[in-house]
Structure formats: structure tokens, C-alpha cells
């Protein structure tokens, strides 16, 4: 049996701009009305950021760039170039050794620890290894951000059910991660990352563990979210995949440094060549 997501992709429907998830559309329209998101203003700013683990040499050096709200960005580079480290700084899992990072207009480097949760709730993360909580069902994993945010239980059910259906796992809500396939786990991880209606979605090698078909579907999904106003940052070294997203910009890391130190993002992906 083909799951709804696959069927929709085959129809070319589910992950298009009309995104059939009222839950997600609701936030976007609300925030646009309330001007909480100002498209194209800098939502992320890195200034001369350096990151060093212990006494080792710097993993990231003099990284400076800014990301506009509502943009779609690829972060690329060879293995070990520092992509994951940069993303960790972005989703506040790590503080830099030096430099300034501004998120949503505030300097998060000097931010007191107790204020970090508020910022983290505005960022959705799809981890490379998914990091689903193994003893929780797919439903409970997806519901986590809402529960963490203190949402009442009667308000949790509808969006979680919606998200489960959206990622084509409507009938697998009770399944534990260990019983799900890699692709299914990934979809749960994505649903979990977006259910909190984050302003920034960060994905670390989201297509690393899935087949080409699933990778293409994921990108379509990210594009749909982006069209709803979410800033997307995807770390990948899959160039054909990047080429799939028109209008996306690319940052290239090379040995811990941005290949373009001006941060002007001069590496737009090329459209796929016609054969």
C-alpha cells in the first residue's frame, strides 16, 4: 500500500505551495498579520565567529554571514569542513569560542542560560541521526515540542494527528522508532521539527540516509515550508539536490572557513542541466 505522502508526491500535490496542513498555515498567516516575521530582514547574523573544541585548533574560523528571514539556504562542504559545528551554533547547542551570533536580532552568545529555551523553541531541528526518543511512540515524539511549550493536552492531539497524516504516518502513530524504517523515522523527525511552527528550520544532512526518491520528497517538503515563511537551513553535500531548489542560496565551508568570507553567498545552485 502506498502511503498518503508518496501518493501525494506522485500526484504532485502534498508538498506544493498549498501545503495541506492547516496547523502550519495557521501560524504563518497569524505571524504575518502580526508582523512577527519580517521577510528578508536578517534573522541570523554571524560575525567573526570561531569555534574551538578544547585545546584543538579552531573547527570554525572567522565565519561571518547573515541569513534573511524566509530564505532557503544550503550549507555545503566536504566532510569535516565544519557544517555540523556551524549548525550546532545556529540551533544553540554550542556557544562559539569567539565572535558574535545574533538570532532574531539578539546576541545569543552573551544571552543568559535561562533565556535560551525561548530561542530554541523558535528553531526546529532535523538531526542527522534523527534523535528520536526511543521509548516514545511516533505520536509522542512529534508531540514533544508542543508539550515542552506547555500546550494543553486537548490542543496537542489535532496538530499531531495532522502532522502524522502530513508525513504519511497516520496509521503508525503508536509505533516506536525502532520499528520504523529509516525513511519513516526521518519523517517523524521532520514532523517533530516543524510542529512547533519554528521560524527557522535547521536540517543536518537530512538526505544522508534516504534514497533519492525520499530525498526529493523531503526537499519538496522543505520548499513548501519555506513558501509559508520558514527560514530553511540545510546542511548537505548533495549538489543535485541543491539544484532542485530554485532560489536557494548556498554557503560553502572549507576547513572551517566560509569559502566566501564576505558572506555574500555567491554560490547559488545552478539549475539542473538538461540532457
Amino acid at each position, binding site marked *: 500500500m502506498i502511503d498518503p505522502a508518496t501518493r501525494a508526491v506522485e500526484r504532485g500535490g502534498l508538498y506544493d505551495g498549498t501545503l495541506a496542513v492547516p496547523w502550519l498555515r495557521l501560524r504563518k498567516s497569524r505571524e504575518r498579520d502580526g508582523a512577527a516575521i519580517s521577510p528578508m530582514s536578517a534573522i541570523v547574523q554571524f560575525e567573526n565567529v570561531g569555534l574551538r573544541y578544547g585545546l584543538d585548533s579552531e573547527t570554525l574560523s572567522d565565519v561571518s554571514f547573515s541569513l534573511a528571514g524566509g530564505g532557503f539556504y544550503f550549507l555545503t562542504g566536504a566532510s569535516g569542513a565544519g557544517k555540523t559545528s556551524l549548525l550546532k551554533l545556529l540551533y544553540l547547542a554550542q556557544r562559539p569560542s569567539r565572535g558574535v551570533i545574533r538570532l532574531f536580532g539578539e546576541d545569543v552568545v552573551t544571552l543568559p542560560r535561562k533565556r535560551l529555551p525561548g530561542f530554541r523553541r523558535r528553531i526546529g531541528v532535523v538531526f542527522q541521526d534523527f534523535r528520536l526518543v526511543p521509548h516514545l511512540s511516533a505520536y509522542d515524539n512529534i508531540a514533544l515540542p508542543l508539550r*515542552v511549550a506547555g500546550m494543553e*493536552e486537548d490542543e496537542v492531539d489535532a496538530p499531531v494527528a495532522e502532522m502524522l497524516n502530513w508525513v504519511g504516518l497516520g496509521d503508525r502513530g503508536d509505533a516506536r522508532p525502532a520499528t520504523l524504517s529509516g525513511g519513516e523515522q526521518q519523517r517523524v523527525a521532520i514532523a517533530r521539527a516543524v510542529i512547533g511552527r519554528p521560524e527557522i528550520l535547521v536540517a543536518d544532512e537530512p538526505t544522508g540516509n534516504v534514497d533519492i526518491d525520499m530525498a526529493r520528497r523531503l526537499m519538496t517538503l522543505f520548499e513548501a515550508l519555506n513558501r509559508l515563511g520558514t527560514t530553511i537551513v540545510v546542511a548537505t553535500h548533495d549538489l543535485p539536490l541543491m539544484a532542485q531548489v530554485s532560489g536557494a542560496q548556498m554557503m560553502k565551508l572549507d576547513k572551517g572557513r566560509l569559502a566566501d568570507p564576505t558572506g555574500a553567498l555567491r554560490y547559488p545552485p545552478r539549475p539542473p542541466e538538461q540532457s
Partner: protein
Amino acid sequence: MASRADRKAAAAARHRLLPGGRLAGPMPWIIAIMMFLTVLAAAAGLGLGAAVQSMSADLAGRASVQVVEADARVREQLAGRALQALRTAPGVRAADPVDPAILAEQLRPWLGEEAMSGDLPVPALIDVMLTPGDAAAKVENLRRLLAGLSSKLRIEPHAAFLMPLAGLLSALGWLAAGAVLLMTLATAAVVVLAARGAHDSHRGTIEVLHLMGSTDVQIARLFQRRIGLDVLLGGALGFAFAIFVILLIGVRLSATGSELLAAISLPWVDWLILAALPITGVLLATVTARWTVLRALGRSL
């Protein structure tokens, strides 16, 4: 406003965040053993304290007057005069002659049946109960009063011969209190170790929760609840078994028929104190777990 069912569902969802069920680990069993020993030590301390208190009241307010006269007739006369003088003396609440038959009965194990014959010059005894306050001065006044009546009248405050025993009981009581204190510290240490262990083994889940915006307090609540429940379960088990043992010892003490051992008793206030131990244990464990986890979380970003 959330309904009760919703609140229950929300609570159940929060509780699912940490895996593992009740009695899954050694923690409840360790706590049960510690609570058992703590309650026993506390009961011993409280019982001995009550015995010392009762003994001290007796010691402070009682004295014996001996009539040391070989001639039985003179002895009886002297005892009568002394009794009369004592009953009207200031500071004396009551003065009663000790029945010679009881005295003879108490001497029988040492003197045999001759103790009852009247041939042995056993001193007559008068039991004196003093009014409360400054027993030493009152005994001294009575000593002077009796000396004025006859040189064969002697007064002995009970404190003189029961004080070492009271001291021993008091020392044992303090020892029991020390044991309770040490057990409390050990319980706190066990909870710290358990909380650290739980924090380490759930590090992955904690990291995910943190990155989703969980606050330290939200995460600490999960652990304090889990550890609090373990301690409640273990504490209840240990407490129940300890109470059973205490009741058994009480029955045994009563069976001895000893006045001294009967003084080791637990009034209802002491039972309340014992009942408060598992509750205190749960509170201590909850606070300790929260503090430990918050400290551990404080070291991360």
C-alpha cells in the same frame, strides 16, 4: 480550562518522557532497607528517651528513708515517728511505708526464706515523693529533719543509685539519634547517586528536550518525580516492616514484666514522628534529586 481527563493525559505524557517502571532498579529496595533501619533507630531513640524521661522524673522526685535499727520494736517506733515527721515536712508530697512483705519478697532471692522470718534485721523503708523543683535542697532539709529525730534514720535520693543507668539509656538514645542522622545523610547520598546515574543514562533524551526548548526545571521535575516515587515506594515498604518489628519487640518487652523495660514506650506523638519519617524521606529525596539534576544541567548549555 483543561478538564481533569486532559490534565491526567498531560501528566501521563510527561511521565512517559523517562522510561522504566516501578521497582525496575535497586533504588526502591535500597531505600526500603534504609528506611527500615532508620525507623528502628528512631523508635529506639524515642523509646529510650521516654524511658530516660520517666526515670529522671522518678529520680528527681523520689527518695527512700531507711530505718537502720536491729530491734524490730524500736525500728517500728522509729519508722512511725519518721513517717509522721515526713508527712508534715515541707516539700514532701507523699510518704508511705514500704510493705515489709514486699521488701522480704524482694530480698528472698538473696536471703532465702529467712528474709520472711523476721529474725534478720532488715531495715524498714519509707518511700518519699517530693514536690516538684530543687530536689537536692529538699532532700538535704529532710536529712537534717531526720537526723534530729534519730541517728538511725537515713535518707537516700533515688538519683544516687539509678543515675548511671539513666546515663547509659540516655547515651543509647543519642546513639540512636546519631544513627538516624547518618541514615538520613546516606539516603541523601543514595538519591544524589541515583539522580546522577539517571541523568547520565538519559543524557540523549535530555539533550533532545533541551534543544526543543525545555527548561532545566521542566527536566528536573521529571527526575524528581521518578526518584520521589521510588523513595515513596521503598520508604513505605521499609516503614511497614519496621513497624511490624517494633510492635513485635513491644510485645516481647511487655512479656518480661520488668518495670524498667516497661518504661521504654512510644506515646502517640512518637508514633507520629515515626510516621513522618517516610514522608520526610520523600521530601528529602525530591529536593535532593531536583538539586542534583539542576546542578548537572547547569553544566550544559
